[in-house]
């Protein structure tokens, strides 16, 4: 990952500007923590607080129990994990078929998948809701997981990647050896696709964690909320305590931030690699 025109060493101006950008990027998150450590009474005063207070533990525990953030975090981890895993598996299988196998309607099907990239998620929610309702899936996590597995981007991305990373001669050689589909998948496709799978998995996980529109419709604060649903409830809810709302926001964001801090290098690399291909 060599810097593009990074031949010159960064001057103090660069550091100053980047520092400012970093402050702006991080400040709202830091202030969420500050607000979560105060009382709503203090937050209602001007000027706003800039230092930590002593109520963090209390607010977190109220948000955790009364705000349902505990349950919501568990639900979200389950949803985001399933979505990431499922999307990667489905996209890899289909992406490989589109990249290297010949079958009828291949072009037409690929076009169809590509066309849906444009479709806003709002488009299908009305009938989707009716179907979910008919199946009795309102407030059930599969109502959120299953529709999210359909990732047109994922299929196209994996296809694109495999077109470049899986030379046809390799497949031809495997065929000559009489390797079955499962073996080809395991020994050729999987290793070749792994970097793209990691990128897709990361992006899908973050997207599912933060998914908003559909979960807010399909789930309710009182049923089986994800973090976003619970936060919506907290934010629009009968909560006498702004600091508790902020504690909820903090709880809902913290896991991803921790993941970002720990796997920063990989995630940055993932976003950048996804971009070059995307």
């Amino acid at each position, binding site marked *: 990952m060599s810097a593009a025109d990074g031949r010159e060493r960064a001057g103090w101006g660069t550091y100053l500007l980047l520092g400012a950008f970093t402050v702006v990027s991080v400040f709202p998150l830091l202030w969420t923590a500050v607000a979560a450590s105060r009382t709503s*009474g203090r937050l209602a005063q001007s000027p706003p607080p800039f230092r930590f207070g002593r109520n963090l533990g209390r607010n977190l525990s109220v948000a955790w129990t009364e705000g349902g953030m505990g349950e919501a975090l568990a639900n979200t981890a389950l949803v985001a994990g399933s979505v990431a895993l499922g999307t990667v598996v489905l996209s890899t299988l289909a992406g490989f078929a589109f990249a290297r196998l010949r079958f009828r309607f291949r072009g037409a099907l690929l076009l169809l998948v590509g066309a849906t990239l444009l479709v806003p998620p709002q488009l299908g929610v009305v009938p989707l809701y009716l179907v979910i309702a008919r199946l009795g899936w309102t407030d059930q996590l599969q109502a959120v997981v299953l529709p999210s597995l359909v990732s047109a981007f994922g299929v196209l991305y994996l296809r694109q990647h495999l077109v470049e990373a899986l030379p046809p001669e390799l497949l031809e050689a495997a065929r000559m050896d009489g390797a079955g589909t499962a073996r080809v998948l395991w020994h050729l496709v999987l290793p070749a696709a792994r970097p793209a799978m990691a990128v897709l998995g990361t992006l899908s996980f973050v997207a599912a964690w933060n998914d908003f529109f559909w979960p807010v419709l399909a789930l*309710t604060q009182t049923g089986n909320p994800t973090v976003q649903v619970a936060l919506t409830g907290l934010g629009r809810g*009968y909560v006498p305590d702004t600091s508790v709302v902020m504690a909820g926001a903090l709880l809902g964001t913290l896991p991803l931030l921790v993941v970002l801090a720990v796997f920063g290098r990989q995630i940055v690399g993932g976003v950048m690699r996804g971009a070059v291909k995307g």
Partner: protein
Amino acid sequence: MLAAAALLAGCATDPPVPPAPGAGSPVPTAGRPVTLTVGVYGTFGMKEAGLYDAYMRLHPDVAIRQTSLSRTDVYYPQLLTHLTAGAGLADVQAVEVGNIAEVVGTQAGRLADLAHAPGVRREDFLPWKWAQARTADGRVLGLGTDIGPLAVCYRKDLFAAAGLPTDREEVGRLWAGDWRKYLAAGRRFAARAPGGTAFTDSASGVMAAVVSGAPLRYYDAAGRLVVAANPAVRAAWDLGAAFARDGLTARLQQFTPDWDRGFAHGRFASVTCPAWMLGYIQDKAGPAGAGKWDVARAPRPGNWGGSFLVVPSAGPRVAEAAALAAWLTAPEQQAVLFERRGSFPSARAAFALPAVADARHPYFGDAPVGRIYSAAAREVPVAPVGPKDGLVNQILSDTGMLQVDQTGRAPESAWRAAMKAIDNALDR
């Protein structure tokens, strides 16, 4: 969420509710413990008043869990989608009066008939309240919890600072008989108002209170929408706009965090005050406001808000849920709810109970809220409610009057905007 409010209200130390005679006849539950869920919005108060705990003591095999959403405009669409889906429902659900006509009109097939639930007696209830939840073929889909007879809550300290009387009788006389006198009092207040305070919270609050006294509001008795042509609605609008024009409001939107902060910081000196508002004020103004607030009679009688409990028939425990709904809305429990939380009974049989008639509210300077609200309830006009009452009301307030109040939009132009929004929302 509500438990946080409960902490403020101090209900944890409340004495247990005495077992209600005659109510709560045990329902056979096949010996297995059942968990009943109750879905409510806002501060409904049944949990805070200890009613669930009392019921669970009466029925050791029943556990009650409450789920709460904020505003009815969030709660109600969710309830409808769940009803049409037959899934995701609580065993007992609350319905606001602004939505009850639509629920009765469109959801009859999905709700249980509560007319003959154990302990339910038609003559216990106010006749019009009973009728609002009754279908054309005589099924009763909702049991009334409370009604919203009107008073005015005010801050004695701010009134005193502005040279207004503070005694609740005198304050009541200040504006008795005419909402325009409330406006005049507002002008007097404004002339000597303590810095950073306004006379009332919002123009919408005034409008809602005035309109709640009209015998005809948004629909006529035949079910036609008359909001645009109804002079009573227009008069309420004009009065609300007058408050905004004269700068007598704190320019807050009701039921938002900013409004809550307005209570907490004493930014306004009075608020039109249906009985259920008492609980809000107590929660939002908190300990800092204790002893500062008082309750006076409203200029004119009115009925703002109030709710019902319904039981979805798709649930697995309809009989147990109906028994719970019946018990929660029985006169004795409504009296407790009033005593503890201020929600005024829709069961007229409760009016005479000492818990209601003699009730005084310590938070509001021991105001005789029982006497004040009982008197108001006797004069409540009975207006027809239509299917979209809640939506119309919300648009008038949050689209129309809010702009007059907060952005200074001309009342005439804001009125037209509200009418357009109503037509659009009702797909007319």
